[in-house]
């Protein structure tokens, strides 16, 4: 489970954590911008800048936010041909990899032999190779997993590139001013784009529910690119705090919280990510770890489901809050896996798992917060409509 930067604490004590943390190529810039730094997945990362989480969140939805996501794992899979690499990758993920067009990206999952989710990731067909981006906290395990199981494929971690996300409705105009070609990309396109003389691997995607880009940039050019983007009046630096509230409102899973080794794709609401060709009856059905369990759960329907929950009052329901059917008595029927205040919604929002019979939007449940059962209503995800450019 990733280190949590949102730890609850009793009293108003603030401690300093001094450990050997890794840094990203933008570390000095974060400090210069006045970021509050926290340990996250072994890295010293900005949780917020002086503007604060609320303002950073709102700015990203209104204009554009710049995120340092260099802690994430970038990996190149190479081999004799795209087909061989794709076929090998299909042995580890339940996605249609062979059918992914050149210059396109897809959301994926590594599954374990029981069908549990080892990590979620993005993978792209970049012509002669597959480019994979995995979660920071899982990257060592993911690289070992791929190296051990991908036959005929060379697994090369990319350690000399930063990863910068530019997210929000103004992202296209801001980035296109430096590299006009990015305006022609649509959601989940990937391309190699020269920006200020640096070879960047750009995808039109993100983790906020907004339109935007993720830019893999050589580390030597990363700070200059970040500064160039921040010069634009529409761009503000955004920390991990707002990244979390943005993705929560967008209904996106955080690995180690909303999905983990005990979660199967269907119950997590991720069946859409498993294309028909890999499901029962499909041409390349199964053939990935835990296929039997994963496909059976899709066919039979899961016993529990990940749902959105809107607490009726003002009190946020955070991760770990237990859910009940009644205001008093009875056993817990579910649990919140992510929750907090949604600045765009203007109220608390949460996600959690509930029995399938209680998963219909409008179902009223109770979350136990500090010993009191407070009402929360199941709501369709996302809480905030996506702004993708399809």
């Amino acid at each position, binding site marked *: 489970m990733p280190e949590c930067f949102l730890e609850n604490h*009793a*009293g*108003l*004590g603030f401690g300093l954590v001094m450990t050997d943390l890794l840094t990203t190529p933008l570390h000095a810039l974060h400090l210069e911008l006045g970021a509050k730094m926290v340990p996250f997945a072994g890295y010293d990362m900005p949780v917020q800048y002086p503007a604060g989480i609320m303002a950073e969140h709102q700015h990203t939805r209104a204009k554009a936010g710049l995120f340092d996501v260099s802690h994430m794992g970038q990996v190149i899979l190479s081999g004799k041909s795209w087909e061989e690499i794709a076929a090998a990758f299909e042995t580890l993920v339940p996605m249609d990899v062979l059918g992914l067009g050149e210059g396109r990206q897809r959301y994926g999952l590594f599954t374990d032999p029981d069908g549990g989710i080892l990590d979620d990731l993005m993978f792209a067909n970049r012509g002669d190779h597959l480019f994979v981006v995995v979660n920071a906290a899982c990257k060592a395990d993911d690289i070992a997993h791929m190296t051990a199981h991908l036959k005929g494929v060379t697994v090369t971690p990319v350690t000399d590139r930063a990863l910068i996300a530019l997210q929000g409705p103004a992202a296209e105009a801001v980035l296109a001013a430096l590299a006009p070609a990015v305006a022609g990309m649509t959601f989940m396109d990937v391309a190699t784009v020269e920006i200020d003389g640096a070879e960047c691997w750009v995808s039109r995607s993100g983790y906020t529910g907004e339109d935007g880009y993720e830019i893999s940039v050589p580390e030597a050019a990363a700070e200059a690119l970040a500064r160039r983007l921040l010069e634009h009046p529409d761009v503000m630096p955004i920390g991990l705090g707002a990244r979390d509230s943005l993705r929560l409102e967008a209904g996106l899973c955080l690995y180690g919280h909303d999905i983990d080794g005990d979660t199967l794709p269907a119950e997590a609401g991720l069946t859409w990510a498993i294309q028909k060709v890999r499901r029962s009856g499909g041409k390349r059905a199964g053939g990935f770890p835990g296929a039997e369990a994963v496909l059976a759960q899709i066919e039979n329907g899961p016993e529990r489901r990940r749902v959105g929950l809107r607490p009726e009052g003002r009190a946020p329901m955070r991760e770990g809050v237990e859910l009940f059917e009644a205001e008093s008595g009875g056993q817990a029927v579910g649990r919140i896996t992510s929750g907090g205040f949604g*600045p765009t919604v203007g109220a608390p929002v949460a996600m959690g798992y509930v029995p399938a019979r209680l998963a219909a939007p409008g179902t009223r449940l109770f979350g136990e917060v500090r010993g009191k059962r407070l009402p929360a209503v199941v709501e369709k995800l996302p809480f905030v409509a996506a702004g993708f450019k399809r």
Partner: protein
Amino acid sequence: MKFTEEHEWLLEEGDLIVVGITEYAAEQLGDIVFVELPEEGTQVSKDDEIVVIESVKAASDILAPLDGEIVEVNSALVDNPAKVNEDPMGDGWFFKIKPADLSPMKDYMDDAAYKDFIGE
């Protein structure tokens, strides 16, 4: 004005003590989105967790600094928790307590000691 190690400020107002959190604490907590106050008339003991505040980041408790009775709470914070960030040392106060015994006040930090405590 006196200060606790839990970053509360305590202001004597007649025979009452007004309690809030310091500017430093408000800044550390970030945007506050939820405040739960005790009921007026509640008898509390020192270190009871009597106020819950939630910021965008986390939940925190405010402890009773003294034994006594809660005689007034700042109920405006319930509808407008952001007031704590806007004016932590003024309009953002949380409650007024009528202490059973004022003598523990002398053990709390003065302004200079608190500044030293937070490293300013």
